[in-house]
Structures are given as C-alpha cells and as structure tokens.
C-alpha cells in the first residue's frame, strides 16, 4: 500500500457523486453559433484582431494578448465572424464576445490533427514560444496565464513541478477521464513543462478514489525518468494549490507568497495536456473537456467542447432541463457560480455544467451561530470563519485582517458544514473585497 498524502488542517468529506467517472469523453460537436469571450483569464482582456465578416479557421488567432498578464484567444471553429459586441455572459453582465457562424471544420495549416503520440521534446526556446502563442491558461479554474507561471524570475528557484490530477469537487470528472484516456500525453506535457522550467522531476498527484487512473499513470510513469505518481487522500479541498503543496512536500506557502517561494509549481493535468497539444501538435487551446452532470441531469456525460459553445447546446445534448432543475452551475458545486443566462458560452475555465434540483442546492434560512466550531475545524487554511463572519456582521472590517481573512481560499468548507446555514463564505468574501478596496 503506497503512502497516502494529505494536508493536516481541516478539510471535509463530501459525497463524491462522480456519476460520469466511467463515461468516455465524447465529442460535443459544433453548434451553429459560437460566442468567444475575449477575456477568459485573469488579467487584461485580449486585443481583438479580426473584423466583422472575416473568415476564420480552427486555430485562427482572434485576439492577441494585451499586456503582460493576458492570453491569446483562438477560434474554436471554422466560419465567419458575424458580430463583435457586448453579449450577455453567464452571470448576466455583458462582456465583449466574438460571435462566429460556424461552417464545416477547417484547420489552420500547421495544426497536426493526427492521433499518434509525439515523444520528442523540442528545445526550451521553442517550447516557451509555443506556449506563449497558444493561449494556454491554468485550466483548474483560476485562469492564470501559463506563460507567466512558467516564467520564473531570476532570484527564485523551482525544484518541483506538481501536476494536479486531483478533482476534489463533487460531480466533476473531466480531468479524471482525460487522465485515463490521455495519460501518456499528460506525462509528456509534464516533461515539456519540466524542460521549460529547467528541472528534472515532476510529481503527478492523484486522488485515492481514481484507481483506474492511478494504475495507468503508475504504469506509464515508469518509462519516463523523473516522473512520480503520488496518491493523496480523498478529501476536499485536496486539489487546492496550497493544500496540495502541503500534502506533497510538507511545506506551507507563507501567507501572501506564491508557491514558487517554496520551490513548487502546480499545474493542472488538463493544462499539462494543453501544453502537450500546443507544443507537439501546434494546437492552440480551443477546446476542453467539460462534465455535464448533476442530480437532475438526464444523461450525464463528459464532452470535448469547443470554447464558445453555448451552455444551452450542451444541456440539450445531455437531455435538456427537466422541470425539477432549479440551479445551473458552471464549475463544481462547492466553488462554481450559478448562471443566469443559459445561452452564455463556456470558456476555458469551466470544468463542468451541473443541473441541480432544489433539494440538492437548497439554502436554508440562517440561524444563530451555536459556536460548534465546525467551521474552524474544517477550514483548510486554519482560519476562524465564525469570527470573520461576526466581524463582518458588525461592520468591523479592519478586525478581519488580524484573522487573516485575506488568506481565505474560498473553498466553501465553512459554509458547507455550518449547521445553522450561516453564509460564512460570503462573509469572508465581503471581508476580502473590503480589505482590498481599503488598501
């Protein structure tokens, strides 16, 4: 029995509900129109390069990274640009999107569409150039542009690359299926990242409840030097960057610092796959794997989806919205956002679309805090959410600073466990927003 790693502070055990863990990835196909947002990452929106009426192919650069913290946006379909205007996004706010009327698939000439695996890794400069021009962002959900993440400042030293294969959110299985089906590609992706970072070893962190993936990964990783598989306990939020580093290396990222300050870089498994595709196949990031699931989803499945596909199209494909559905969520049930507009497109950061019934996603009326301490026990950052909540309720924002409210990773454990249904996470978010505004 291999050693099971985990983080010592807090964490909760939630019902995993991985309905789609065994359903193979299917191609979602191409909808009639795709809407490609020009901001799918943290940072400034990309600069639009196309005009209305332009013909585009799959992989055509639509918008160029603007500034240091930004990412390229590529076309996910072949067709014609019919509009560039503010369009209603998932949360109801209007954002700039490029609307493309689709035509039959046609690829940019340098994209390699063959299926065989290419194992030779090019030079470091080539890798960095290709990653920079393929619009790769962290696919775990934060959306931090990958080129910045692998560009280590001179005074910092990275010793360890961790490939995050832990999908601790309930329902989501997109990464799990990808790892089961594209294990070798992900490992080559990790080796490419290794070369870009100038280090030799990569650790693939996997969740204990994915025996199939563990078996495949362990078998393939033996062939590659420096690639190790480490198994982590099934506990939420094991996939959180800071929790994963603690579990794997035993080090804590100091408050307010980055993982590279303790010599670690964490990349999502899907990001590693995107890096492989970009470097070996010249394929920019224009599609990703998305899980459609939830207790009211008629046909839960994992789809390979073009960026910009409207959620409605995917929901129709998996059986439509039943009358019991009261919430539709982009992302996982713990950290995802409920959406207002089902016509909104999926972007690079969305790992799942969940259709939940009222029974599942119910919010009970808030009661008194009974001081049970469950929130503090479950907080993976060792904070005292009840205290932050009390301070925010009484408008004492300054005091939350001394409770380290800024270190909250917004995992939602506190609000999940609270027996009085106090929206503790919302209070932490208010505290963080107010503290940020004041500084």
């Amino acid at each position: 029995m291999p050693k099971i790693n985990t983080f010592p502070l807090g964490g909760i055990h939630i019902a995993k509900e991985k309905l789609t863990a065994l359903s193979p990835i299917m191609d979602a196909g191409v909808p009639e129109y795709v809407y490609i947002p020009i901001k799918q990452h943290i940072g400034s929106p990309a600069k639009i390069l196309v005009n209305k009426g332009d013909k585009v192919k799959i992989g055509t650069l639509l918008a160029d990274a603007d500034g240091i913290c930004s990412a390229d946006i590529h076309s996910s379909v072949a067709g014609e640009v019919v509009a560039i205007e503010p369009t209603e996004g998932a949360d109801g706010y209007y954002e700039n999107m490029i609307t493309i009327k689709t035509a039959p698939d046609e690829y940019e000439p340098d994209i390699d569409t063959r299926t065989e695996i290419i194992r030779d890794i090019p030079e470091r400069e080539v890798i960095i150039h290709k990653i920079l021009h393929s619009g790769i962002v962290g696919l775990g959900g934060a959306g931090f542009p990958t080129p910045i993440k692998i560009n280590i400042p001179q005074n910092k030293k990275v010793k360890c690359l961790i490939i995050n294969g832990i999908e601790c959110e309930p329902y989501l299985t997109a990464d799990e299926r990808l790892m089961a089906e594209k294990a070798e590609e992900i490992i080559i992706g990790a080796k490419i990242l290794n070369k870009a970072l100038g280090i030799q070893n990569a650790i693939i962190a996997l969740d204990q409840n994915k025996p199939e993936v563990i078996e495949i990964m362990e078998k393939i990783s033996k062939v590659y030097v420096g690639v190790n598989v480490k198994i982590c306990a099934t506990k939420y939020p094991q996939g959180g960057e800071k929790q994963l580093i603690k579990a794997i290396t035993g080090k804590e990222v100091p408050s307010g610092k980055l993982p590279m300050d303790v010599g670690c870089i964490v990349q999502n498994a899907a990001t590693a796959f995107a890096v492989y595709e970009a470097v070996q196949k010249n394929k920019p990031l224009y599609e990703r794997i998305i899980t459609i699931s939830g207790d009211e989803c008629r046909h839960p499945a994992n789809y390979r989806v073009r960026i910009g596909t409207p959620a409605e199209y995917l929901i129709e494909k998996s059986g439509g919205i039943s009358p019991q559905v009261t919430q539709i969520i982009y992302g996982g049930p713990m950290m995802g956002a409920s959406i207002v507009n089902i016509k909104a497109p999926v972007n690079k950061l969305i790992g799942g679309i969940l259709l939940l019934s009222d029974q599942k996603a119910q919010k009970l009326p808030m009661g008194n805090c009974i001081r049970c301490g469950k929130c503090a026990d479950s907080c993976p950052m060792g904070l005292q959410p009840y205290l932050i909540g009390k301070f925010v309720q009484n408008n004492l924002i300054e005091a939350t600073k001394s409770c380290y409210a800024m270190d909250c990773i917004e995992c939602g454990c506190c609000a999940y466990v609270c027996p009085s249904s106090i929206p503790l996470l919302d209070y932490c978010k208010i505290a963080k927003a107010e503290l940020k505004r004041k500084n």
Partner: protein
Amino acid sequence: MSELIYTNIFVLDGVALTAAVILYFVSKKFKSKSNPKVEQIEQCLPQVNCGACGKVGCHDFATACSKSTEEEFSKLYCPVGGLTVMNKIATLLGYEEQNKKEKRIAVLRCNGSCENAPAQKIYDGIFSCQIAATVSSSPNGCPDGCLHLGDCVRACPFQAIQIDEKTSLPVINPDKCTACGVCVRTCPRQLFEIRPINKKGEQVYVACRNRQKGAIARKNCKVACIGCQKCSTINSTIKVKDNLSYIPTTLSAEKYGKELSEICPTKAIVYRKITNIKEDADA
C-alpha cells in the same frame, strides 16, 4: 467573633487602600494629554463618526479644525451638523462664520421596482448587495440597477433609508438624510448621489444608471434611460454618454423639471416636489 470582624475590616480596607494608591499613580503616569480646544470642538460635533467630512471620525475632524488657519477652516465642513455646528466651531476658534449652504439629500438613481423591472430569476442567498452583485447582474437582468437587498439601509448612520415594501426599492427620508455620503460609498452599483434640493423642495434627476443600449435596457426595465437624447434638447448642459443621460446638479429643477419629466419617453427622469420638508435649524 469580634476578632474576625476586625481582621476582615482591616484586610479589606488594606486591599482597597493599596488599590486606590496604585490607581492614583497609574492615572498620573498614563494621563493622556489632550488639547482642550479639540475637546470643545468635539463636543459641538454630532459624534456619529460617519466620515462624511472626509476625515476618519469626529475626533479627527476636530483635530483638523483646531489646527487649521482661517483659510483652511473654510474648506472644512461637517455635512451632518451643517452650518449650525460649523458656526459654533468658528466662534470657538474666533473665525468668521460661513454662509448658508443649500440643503442636499441623497437620491437613488434607479427606479427598477418589482413592477417596472420584474425579476426573471430568484436570488437565493445572503442579504448583501455586494455579494449579489458578484454572483450575477441582477434577478431582473439590469447590470446597473438596485439589487433590493439593503446594504444602504444597514450602512446609513441616521436610519434615513428604508426598503419600501411595495417597490422593494430603498426610500430616503429627506428629514433624516444629512447628505453624509455613506450610502454613496456603500452601494456596489453607485446608485446614490447627493443632490441639492431647492427652496421649494424640488429635484430633478435621471433615475437610471444603465449604460446598455436602449433596446436591451428597455427589455429588462420599463423605466430605463435609453439614451434618446431628448432631454439634451431642452438644456444643453444635460449630457448623454454611454446611452445614459446625466442632469447636472446645477440645473434648476424649478425651471426645467416639469418639462424634462414630461419629455422623457420612458419616464426615467424623475421630477419631484418634497413638501413639508423639515428645515435645518440654521435655515
């Protein structure tokens, strides 16, 4: 028995005496030196620490007053206490009294009530506009409109704002409003504006902040500003920018108010007359 009583009296008195001596020396040693003038000024101030004057609180304002020259002093103003308080402070400092300023109150630049902008989704969460604004645009679809969750009600230091049960919009009580500006800073949608109210109690303003194109704005809300520019034909100081009209505070409500509210096709311009307004003591 009597021995016990004497012992008790002796011990307790001893403890009390020692404590008194210690306290005496501690209070001598740690006595805070405060400027008597600051204290006097502070006593004139309303003591709500709202921060409307731009200082951290009333004490800070008092300190600033006490240090100011006459010219600097004329720039300081306590919007809550108004002229009465400022003149009192001026007398204390031996400066000249200031002139009367116009009465100003906060107005809500949104009219998206349940009727005008019916909800299309149910918001099921914490009562905080700030959180609701990050979760989605609004249940009624307007990305700039009132969220009806009452952050302003909780923030107002004078209890001047209340949520109307019928419209679910916050209503400002003009008698209680001191134009302190806390609501302006609190509202995540910046819906409040401090606007003057003329002697007859008249006000005219655009009750909308929606910057979307007219058709989209109108789809979600009956009384949205659609940027039709009709109002700017009446007075050229009214500017329409990003599909949204803005009436400057200097525009006379008495002269143009009625005309403006009648010409506005969506009734986004509000012209109102507040009667029986309680005058400030200094008026």
